[in-house]
């Protein structure tokens, strides 16, 4: 079990809602962004002198630009429906991690400066002046929200705390209080093209290495092309897919699927990152600037389609926002939705029958599936509502014989965040990440004990990294996490593939054509 200097929550068979314990997470906050990172995003380097007035101005500006913010700050009736829905509250007991508790940090200032009741009867309606203490609270608790939208499912008015958190982070950025992790990463995207700061040469090397590995293993020359002009498909995938485990096994899988489907595709060194941390900091301008790289890459390479790899919030930005931010995509082939998810592509190929699958290759696993929050509650796959739940499961079931779902109140639209989303996947927030993972860990442990589940598949780079790191704290094996396309990769039998020695049955070899 991983060592920790904080108490690791105990996993229960029947999850409980903890009693309110104020302040348990008041000490948790991420590092502040250095001036240089702030400035590359067009934000002031450090807390400005007239921060109070600037913050209120920024709030007023956002209230005029976002109906969600205006309506949600007005509409809450404090019914309590959301209070037991946030994984961070369930894992920490801190009432400011209840969705409404978190919203109220902003709402009390909104009421004080923008509403009649708050201006004249502040005590009555819980309105408060914006003080340095309140600002500090904002920094602490708006960096304990992963913007997973689980609360918005249960709110009778659809109030989405993610919208409030994004606005709060934008206000803080505008007065010079940015979060290091997010803003440094966005800076890297501008400078180098991806979150990890992998330059083009390193990327090319990595892809070449992958080609060699796949050929060694299968005897088939599967290509992982970079910057190929005139390719049909531009694949945009999170940069973790280039080297992190188990992400890279997913990338190998995408390549195999494209290879078997017989389509031409390419990655782009310019848009070598699907993630868009502009969303996490609620900055439309930055989100747009990050998105424009994809448009530019698609134009420069002359592709016909854009497909996104496995990533949660990236898919939200791609599916829900890309057309808005960087559209219209009238230069692409109108036969295909823009953009598509790799799972939509793979499932389409499976239905066409172009993929030769040997399910027994995954017989050493009993697999469950973690619905990523942003895919589940902020996007879709396929033509039908809910396709984002069905298509990944269909693909998993097509390549695995043994699949089990976790408890119904922890999957689909009610899925729990991994605990590391929304710009919180940083080591300075380790305690929060471990505690926030508790509800998911509980559900996972239950299917391990009841159904012998050995692996959990995920379709998000952040989920994969977060679970890899957090599972050991709960006494589970970090290798449990697999990419969905890793399962596909295991089971796919490439045309002309030579068998590995360790293939168990000869039968499967006969399946090749």
């Amino acid at each position: 079990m991983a060592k920790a200097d904080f108490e690791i929550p105990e996993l229960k068979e029947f999850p409980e809602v903890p009693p309110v314990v104020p302040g348990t997470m008041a000490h948790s906050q991420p590092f502040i962004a250095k001036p240089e990172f702030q400035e590359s995003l067009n934000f002031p380097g450090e807390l400005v002198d007239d921060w109070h007035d600037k913050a209120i101005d920024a709030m007023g500006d956002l209230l005029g630009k976002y109906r969600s913010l205006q309506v949600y700050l007005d509409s809450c009736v404090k019914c309590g429906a959301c209070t037991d829905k946030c994984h961070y509250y369930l894992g920490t007991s801190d009432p400011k991690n209840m969705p409404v508790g978190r919203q109220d940090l902003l709402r009390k200032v909104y009421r004080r400066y923008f509403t009649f009741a708050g201006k004249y009867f502040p005590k009555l309606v819980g309105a408060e002046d914006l003080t340095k203490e309140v600002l500090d609270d904002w920094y602490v608790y708006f960096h304990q929200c992963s913007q997973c939208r689980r609360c918005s499912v249960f709110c009778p008015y659809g109030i989405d705390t993610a919208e409030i958190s994004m606005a709060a982070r934008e206000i803080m950025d505008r007065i010079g209080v940015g979060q290091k992790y997010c803003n440094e990463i966005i800076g890297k995207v501008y400078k180098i093209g991806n979150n990890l700061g992998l330059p083009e040469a390193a990327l090319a090397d990595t892809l070449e290495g992958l080609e060699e590995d796949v050929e060694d293993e299968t005897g088939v020359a599967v290509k992982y092309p970079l910057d190929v002009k005139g390719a049909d498909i531009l694949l945009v995938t999170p940069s973790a897919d280039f080297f992190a485990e188990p992400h890279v096994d997913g990338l190998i899988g995408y390549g195999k699927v494209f290879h078997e489907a017989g389509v031409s595709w390419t990655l782009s060194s310019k848009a070598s990152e699907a993630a868009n941390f502009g969303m996490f900091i609620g900055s439309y301008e930055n989100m747009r600037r990050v998105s424009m790289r994809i448009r530019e890459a698609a134009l420069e390479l002359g592709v016909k389609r854009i497909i996104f790899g496995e990533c949660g919030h990236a898919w939200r930005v791609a599916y829900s926002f890309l057309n808005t931010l960087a559209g219209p995509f009238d230069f692409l082939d109108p036969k295909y939705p823009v953009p598509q998810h790799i799972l939509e592509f793979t499932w389409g190929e499976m239905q066409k029958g172009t993929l030769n699958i040997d399910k027994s290759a995954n017989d050493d696993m009993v697999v469950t599936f973690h619905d990523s929050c942003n895919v589940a509650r902020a996007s879709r796959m396929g033509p039908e509502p809910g396709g984002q739940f069905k298509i990944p499961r269909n693909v998993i079931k097509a390549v695995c014989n043994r699949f089990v779902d976790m408890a119904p109140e922890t999957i689909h639209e009610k899925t729990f965040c991994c605990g590391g989303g929304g710009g919180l996947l940083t080591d300075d927030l380790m305690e929060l990440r471990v505690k926030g993972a508790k509800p998911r860990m509980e559900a996972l442990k239950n299917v391990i004990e009841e159904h012998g589940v050995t692996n959990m598949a995920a379709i998000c780079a952040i989920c994969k990294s977060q679970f890899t790191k957090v599972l050991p704290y709960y006494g589970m094996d970090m290798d449990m996490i697999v990419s969905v396309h890793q399962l596909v990769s295991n089971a796919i039998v490439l045309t002309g593939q030579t068998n590995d020695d360790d293939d168990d049955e000869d039968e499967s070899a006969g399946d090749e054509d």
Partner: protein
Amino acid sequence: MSFLTVAFAALFYAATLLLVVGLARRISLYWRTPAPLKIPTTPAPVTQGGVVLRMFREVVFFESLFKSTKWTWLFGWVFHMALFAVLFRHLRYFTEAESIMAVVTFVSPLFKYLAFAMIIGLLGLWGRRLFVDRVRYISAPSDHLMLLLLLLIGISGAMTTFVAHTDVVMVKAFFRSLMTFSFSDMPNLPNDPFIVVHLLLVAVLMIIFPISKLLHAPGVFFSPTRNQVDNPREQRHIADWARKLEQ
């Protein structure tokens, strides 16, 4: 005319004006404020018709609240539906239309008892606010006072029906003359405490409606997570202020 009658006439004109103007301004603000991004909570309907259905389920059945907590749903839904039924019965004070009066008279024997359902719903909601630690934590004084106000309105109203009958003919004549601005034949309001308290508190409720959390009533219709169609790939959605960034 008695002083009470004059005072209440003035009060109800003022309250109505504040309610109508206040709500109109708020709704116009919600209407004018753009929603720059597609943020429906998914799975979401892919057609406008589907969105209408989703909103209908939300407003009539409190679908999301039902998913969340059954007790809050039960008390909240019972309170709201009983409130609408009771309000419907109040139409008899404002209309002469025979068709409406016929329906009101028909449902009255049943609907009048829904005042108790309304009170029970409110007590249940207050109970949660007092005894569930999470809900207690998020409650401001105004949240308690709002429940108190609604309870007193419900109880005082029920008293006029079930305990000390008010002269409803006089009350109706009073409101009809307010509505038709015919002050010459305006009758005096019955001078009994329950109706006075009831009317006073209703006027207070009308006045605070547009400046309180009661804005959830128009707010839900403007909630982007509930009223947007899930079709971002098919239709480009862009706000005016965002379009300016493209130039």
